[in-house]
Structures are given as C-alpha cells and as structure tokens.
C-alpha cells in the first residue's frame, strides 16, 4: 500500500526473484536493520534456483535463533525444530526419504553450542545434507550472549568484560569430523555465498557452508563496531580468499583478517550408500530398501 515505484512507468513488473521462494504472507520478517541473515536468504534462493533441484522435494530445517527463523520464511517444506536439534531431525527426514534434498539452516550457537554433537556425528556419518551456518559470532535471538564462535575479547552480555572463552574454528571442526565440502564466506561475498551453497547442495554427502554475518543490534553495537554496513565494509576489506587453505589455519580473531574460500571438497560415500551397499552385500536380493 505504501509501495513506492521508483522505476519508471514503462518498466514491466518484474518480481524480485527471491519472492517465489518466500512466504510473502509472513513478511516483513523479524530481522533487524542491517542484519545479514536476509542477505543470506537471497543467496540461498538464487543457489537453489541455479542448482535446479526439485523445490517440492527440498526441505529446510532450522533450529532456534534469529537464523532459525529462516525456515519459517521460506516457501518450502520447512521445519523450525528445537534448539540445537535441526541436524538429527534432518537425519531422520533424509534417511526416511532419500529422495529429499535437505538443507539445515541455522545459527552458530544452535549448530555448535548446544548442537555441536549432532554436527560432528552427522558429518562423521556423512549423512547427505547441506548445513548452512549463519555465523554472527553471537547469540542473536536471546540478546547477545557469547557463542562458541565469539572471538576472544569481543563482548557479549554473558562475558560483559570481553570474552576469554576461545572459540571453535568451525571449518577445522567440520573437516576433522568428516564433512565432504567445507567453505566459508562472509555476507559481503554474495556471489561466492550463492555459488558455495549451490555447490554444497549438489555435492553428495555432508556439506557445510559457514557465512560470517553482521548482527548490528547485538554484536556490533556492544562491541562498538558500528552498524551492519560497517561490518559489511569490514568484511570487504579484511577478507582473504584462500581456496584450499588448511582448515587448521582459518581461526577467526576479533576484528582481524578473515580467511574465506572453499577449503574442503572431497568424495566419501554417504551413510545411505554405505548402508545400501553393505546390506546388499550381506543379503543380496533379500535386502529390502525402503520405497521412501
């Protein structure tokens, strides 16, 4: 109703391409001004489109958090589960219907604090799914507590004098647990993010895309880093693309250089492949896969 058409009159009505993937009846979304989560959704939408997967057979699973709300805004079969449990839910979904494409889309706290065990186990098993982590280095939804990704010295409400709790190096953890595709980008890298998500979705097995993202309301404000745009510019200036970097070397320090790139890309049989091959070798014809 307040729609303001800046474009000239003769312009054909072209829809924002992300809209077909959104539940427009749920807009506006809850995210703050300058929050990076919405931008990742743009990238995700394009990646999904480019990957040509069947959208009716694509499910998205989120945990709880600001990022956890992504599932609810996407016009796909979508699940807003419990805090930290998106991955085991997705494991059930995938194993019960192998035809589905499964994307887990959640926050750094959700996936790596309370959910850390599920992450490493699903990676170990190589369950075929893509995990997208919007890493804003903080707990957004609950109001800015430190996450296991918060850089040392950065402030969160639970470490108000600055954190002294050393964070995970997520790509290294993913790598050591067995993920077959591991990439990190920042929200500034919209094209790279899009490409990485597309590659991750098309790469069979457990793939992981970490997206460093601004949380202006909580992380940036408390740490006097300006607004979302300031963080975006920081990413622009301080990211170093280093494809194939040893995941050991990609730690993130407070407001220091961020190594981004595609770090791991390898082939491993998925849990389901292993299962089917093994049980076929044991039972031959008798083995009854499910029709799922």
């Amino acid at each position, binding site marked *: 109703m307040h729609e303001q058409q*800046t474009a000239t009159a003769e312009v054909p009505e072209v829809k924002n*391409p992300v809209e077909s993937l959104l539940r427009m009846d749920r807009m506006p979304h809850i995210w703050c001004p300058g929050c990076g989560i919405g931008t990742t959704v743009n990238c995700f939408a394009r990646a999904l489109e480019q990957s040509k997967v069947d959208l009716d057979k694509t499910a998205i699973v989120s945990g709880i958090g600001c990022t956890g709300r992504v599932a609810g805004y996407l016009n796909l079969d979508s699940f807003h589960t419990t805090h930290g449990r998106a991955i085991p839910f997705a494991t059930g979904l995938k194993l019960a219907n192998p035809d589905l494409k499964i994307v887990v889309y959640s926050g750094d706290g959700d996936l790596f604090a309370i959910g850390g065990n599920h992450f490493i186990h699903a990676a170990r098993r190589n369950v075929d799914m893509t995990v997208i982590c919007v890493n804003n280095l903080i707990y957004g939804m609950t109001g800015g507590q430190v996450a296991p990704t918060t850089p040392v010295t950065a402030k969160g409400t639970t470490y108000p004098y600055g954190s002294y709790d050393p964070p995970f190096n997520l790509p290294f953890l993913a790598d050591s647990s067995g993920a077959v595709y591991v990439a990190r980008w920042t929200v500034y890298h919209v094209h790279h993010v899009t490409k990485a998500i597309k590659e991750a979705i098309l790469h069979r097995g457990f793939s992981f895309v970490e997206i460093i993202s601004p949380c202006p309301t909580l992380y940036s404000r408390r740490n006097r880093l300006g607004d979302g*745009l300031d963080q975006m510019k920081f990413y622009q200036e301080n990211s170093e693309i280093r494809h194939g970097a040893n995941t050991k070397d990609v730690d993130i320090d407070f407001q220091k250089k961020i190594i981004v790139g595609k770090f791991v890309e390898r082939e491993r049989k998925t849990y389901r492949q292993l299962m089917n091959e093994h049980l076929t070798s044991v039972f031959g014809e008798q083995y009854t896969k499910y029709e799922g």
Partner: protein
Amino acid sequence: MKKVQGTVVIKADSCKGCAFCVEFCPTGALHLSDSYNAKGYRIPELIDETKCTGCGLCGLFCPDFAIHGFIIKKVA
C-alpha cells in the same frame, strides 16, 4: 560503455535503511533519500536512472527483500 539499461523496484515499506544496496551498487546508482518510511527508515532511490545496469546486486544484498534491480532494455 554501458550495454544495458536497468532499474530498480523498491518496496519502501519493507526497507530498513541499512544502505547495503547503496554501498554495494557497482555503478553508484543509488543513494539514501531524505524521505523516511513509516518505520522511520531512510529509503534508497536511484540517483541517476541511466547509471543502473540492472545487475541485480542491490537485490542480492538487500536483507529485507525491499529492492531489486533488473534490465529494462539493451543499449546498443
């Protein structure tokens, strides 16, 4: 130089004035206007219509799905 002519559609209501679009438009076609929307945010507008290539980057950046750019005609 410029091969195509583009433009943007802005949903002023959805905009939260983050200026991502303005900052990362490769041709500098946008600026934050002086008008506020109902929520009190300054919204972007095209400075110069001819600068826009319709590359769509503004829409890719916009976290609020409030803007998108597209090509309206080829310029020979």
